[in-house]
């Protein structure tokens, strides 16, 4: 079942095939003509967006084998699927800019957030919240909050019952929303309301078809969030605390920057932690030996999290745009070209992780992966995710329900490639 059809908030590109094709007509960037003598860049015209959405990994494997930097006409961009290629892009924000063409993100949340800025502009927005999101604050201040929230929704699971619970619906989704509300410091909002905001912002950012009903939803949520922030920013200037909104409110940034980045956080800080809860439980259910090992030795939880985020990366692809002609992994790329940095593919690149790359193995030799990005845009919430999900939400679920596993009498569903995760995960524990 695919009840949610979110669109990617980070680049304004729909992840459905129909929308992606239509978007070609709207994109400001026109691809250069294919080289008639074959000396130009490789083209992967066989890429099928519907197949990517259903299961992207076969497509990624073929792209890596044939042309890890390839022009994909259906997506109107180059896809980069090798680890080295993705890593090189992240090391050079002068050539590979995060400030990509297309204004749906700005339209959706009111102004350009840090994720669409390069340094030094980006770091001005980002630096104020880094102290909130470093390990000390996350463990000491927020760890107890994340633990309390996990207990709340484990109680809900117990009420729903073994064999009836959907781990996504009953635990991962509300817990991700509650944790985000607390960490941001939002007040007088419900878990459902902030989930709706998140979904609406995501829909608005992907509204390349200019669907007025999506803009209406998005505008309603933007107005609600802005109204709240209009009160919260002065409140936190008078009453600072350890939350993200407080850090931004007291940073000297204009209120419009604060609001844009709070709304970015609401958009992007919900799906990924949610997906990591279900990814980890799914992976351990598929690999009972490793499940037994981590339940016997809780120090392995960090490795379970890290391997799960590599193996089924919740953010599969994000965009960059070239500022000038360049050569990447031997492929000439023109100026102004759209680039899809396919970190989910890079995270299974055999050239980097060895031939076992497609397997889930918590004991694999430690190698850097790109699930959180790399470089200045490295996910600001990476310590938060490792702690709130990897050390708290999932271990606590197994403590409460030691038999927790997939309910094989009901089917789970995966969806997406730009964002990929379980949209439903029926579980049992008896």
């Amino acid at each position, binding site marked *: 079942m695919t009840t949610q059809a979110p669109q990617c908030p980070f680049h304004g590109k729909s992840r459905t095939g129909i929308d992606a094709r239509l978007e070609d007509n709207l994109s400001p960037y026109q691809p250069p003509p294919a080289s008639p003598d074959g000396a130009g860049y490789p083209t992967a015209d066989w890429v099928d967006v519907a197949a990517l959405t259903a299961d992207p990994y076969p497509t990624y494997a073929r792209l890596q084998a044939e042309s890890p930097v390839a022009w994909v006409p259906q997506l109107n961009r180059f896809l980069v699927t090798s680890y080295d290629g993705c890593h090189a892009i*992240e*090391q050079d924000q002068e050539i590979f800019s995060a400030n990509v063409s297309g204004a749906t993100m700005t339209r959706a949340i009111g102004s350009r957030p840090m994720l669409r800025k390069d340094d030094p502009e980006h*770091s001005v927005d*980002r*630096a104020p919240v*880094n*102290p909130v*999101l*470093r*390990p*000390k604050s996350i463990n000491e201040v927020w760890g107890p909050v994340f633990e309390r929230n996990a207990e709340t929704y484990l109680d809900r699971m117990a009420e729903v019952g073994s064999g009836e619970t959907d781990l996504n619906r009953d635990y991962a989704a509300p817990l991700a929303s509650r944790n985000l509300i607390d960490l941001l410091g939002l007040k007088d909002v419900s878990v459902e309301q902030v989930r709706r905001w998140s979904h609406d912002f995501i829909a608005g950012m992907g509204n390349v078809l200019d669907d007025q009903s999506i803009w209406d939803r998005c505008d309603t949520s933007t107005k609600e969030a802005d109204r709240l922030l209009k009160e919260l920013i002065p409140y936190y200037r008078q009453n600072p605390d350890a939350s993200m909104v407080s850090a931004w409110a007291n940073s000297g940034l204009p209120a419009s920057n604060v609001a844009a980045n709070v709304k970015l956080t609401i958009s992007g800080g919900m799906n990924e932690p949610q997906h990591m809860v279900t990814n980890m439980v799914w992976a351990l259910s598929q690999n009972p030996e490793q499940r037994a090992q981590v339940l016997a030795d809780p120090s392995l939880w960090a490795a379970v999290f890290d391997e799960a985020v590599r193996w089924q990366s919740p953010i599969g692809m994000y965009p960059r745009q070239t500022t000038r002609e360049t050569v990447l992994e031997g492929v000439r790329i023109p100026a102004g070209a759209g680039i899809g940095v396919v970190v989910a593919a890079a995270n299974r690149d055999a050239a980097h992780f060895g031939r076992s790359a497609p397997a889930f193995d918590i004991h694999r030799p*430690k*190698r*850097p992966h790109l699930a*959180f990005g*790399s*470089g*200045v*845009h*490295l996910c*600001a919430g*990476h*310590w938060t995710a490792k702690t709130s999900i990897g050390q708290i939400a999932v271990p606590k679920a197994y403590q409460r329900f030691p038999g927790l596993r997939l309910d094989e009498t009901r089917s789970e569903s995966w969806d997406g490639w730009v964002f990929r995760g379980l949209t439903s995960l029926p579980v049992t524990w008896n």
Partner: protein
Amino acid sequence: MPSVTYTQPDGSQQTLEVKEGTTLMRAAVSNGIDGIIGECGGQAMCATCHVYVRPEYADALPGMSDDEDEMLDCATAERLDRSRLACQIRIDAELAEIVVDIPPAQL
């Protein structure tokens, strides 16, 4: 030009000529020095550019911020008195030459 020498855990050394203003992390990552990852791009958010600075260069180093101090506690390899984050050390006129040891692990 200033020089930076990176010593691997096996004792092998690589010396880079580095422009003033470059950090030890950026120079290493740009030149493919193994064992320095620099995941967060130099924001003191990840502790994957941990190095041990040879004591004879300690006096020429910039002071340590609270952020760097906090992150060094999260480094994978043992923190020593001479531990620093390579992203927080910038090559400049005060520091025309430095030798660092790369720890056995960053992850």
